[in-house]
């Protein structure tokens, strides 16, 4: 399944988030970039919950902030300790 999606993406040259739900990059545990549009469900100092089409991503840590948020993606900074993925029913 994964291979076929990547092949499809290569052939039609569109961003991966158009096919997949989101794309996640982690930079040294202090910065995370999520490509793809997600809705913020919960924003607190220690928890950030973002809902995507198929999954919900939860970040746990201290001083979690959103540095940038647009329809293209979201940039999260702070001391991130744990990331949780929940499948939507």
């Amino acid at each position, binding site marked *: 399944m994964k291979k076929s999606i990547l092949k499809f993406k290569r052939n039609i040259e569109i961003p991966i988030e158009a096919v997949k739900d989101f794309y996640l990059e982690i930079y040294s545990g202090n910065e995370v970039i999520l490509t793809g*549009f997600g*809705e*913020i*469900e*919960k*924003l*607190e*100092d220690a928890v950030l919950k973002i809902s995507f089409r198929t999954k919900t991503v939860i970040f746990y840590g201290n001083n979690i*902030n*959103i*540095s*940038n*948020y*647009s*329809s293209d993606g*979201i940039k999260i900074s702070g001391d991130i300790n744990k990331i949780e993925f929940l499948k939507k029913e």
Partner: protein
Amino acid sequence: MIIIIASIARYFLGYVDFTAIGADIEKFITFLAKNGIEIISYTKKEYVFYGKILAKDYLKIKRYAKRCGLKLKIRKKHGMIFDIRKNINKIGFFTGLIFIILFVYCMNMFIWQINVTGNLKVETEEILKSANEMGLLTGTLSKKHFVQNIEWYILRKHPELSSVEINIQGSVANILINEIKKESEMVSDDDIPVNIVAGKYGVIRRIDVFDGQKAVNKGDAVMKGDLLVSAVYEDRHNKLTLKHARANVIAETDYNMEIEFPLKEKIFKKNKLEKTTFIVSVLGKKYYFGYNKNGDYLSLKTNEKQINFLWLKLPIIVTKIQHYSVKENTITHNLEEGRIEAFELLRKKEKETMSDMEIISRKTEEKIKNGKYIINADYIVLMDIAEEQPIESDVPWENSDDIS
């Protein structure tokens, strides 16, 4: 770098710090992102949301806040537009702003820089001097100059130039120069009849006569001043004519050279910085700061800098002069070092002065006299000893260039 550029752009566009108080903050920021409104940075503390947004987007987010039941409040306004609005009523700010605009406008009315391009043979200083004589100086009004007159004057003053073009753009005057390209001229030295005589004694080893009558042969020994090639030419009809004789006469002769190398050398070395002085030149007039014209400074280091105001070059040149004291050191060479250095000097001098000679043999004598290592070198060489000697005669004179 990107962060700095983004900050500058934000300052020019203007942005606001705001707070949103209410329960449904998450829904509010999702709305903003969905609708393409970017919030620069976020923090949330319990029911209070702190954010920064571009000034133009602030009005748009009001309706989203209302829909989410949030209360918006501006904490602080940042940016150029807000600074101007805040200070416009203050007389000092307003006066300063007007003064800067007027100052920049006035500065643009004067010539602050004169560039000369395209000159190779004629010095830039010479052209600038001619332009100055016609009143084209730094600090003068750019509109008062009659460019055609200056161009004509420079052309008249420098016959080596084929064209001069002056363009005055704002506060810069560009002088474009075109020089006359001269074709190489034929130089004729056949102006007088000459004999070829020996410039030095020796034994002729080769003789190539191009014009005139050969007077010696290969193997002949000649003394200085002996006739080698005669200007008097006798043709097969026994008719005598005078010519400008030309020949290469290679003879075996001797040559001498003496080299001296001092075994004790005095070297002057830059020591510590003693004093720094300045010369400020404003519109060609010089002002000295801490400068003693009669001072005995042996080593100077100068650094010239033109003062700029924003992008404009002002007619103010600051010359920084650093005065160093000088320390005298004496270096003593031993005999071996002196010998090596003296032979090195001899080799260099041979290269310089004997490049047109062929050395057959060399004999050297070495001695030490008055603290100097002396080498006396005697050579046997092959060299051209031909020397032209003009003659005066009533015999008809034939210029070979006229015939050709």
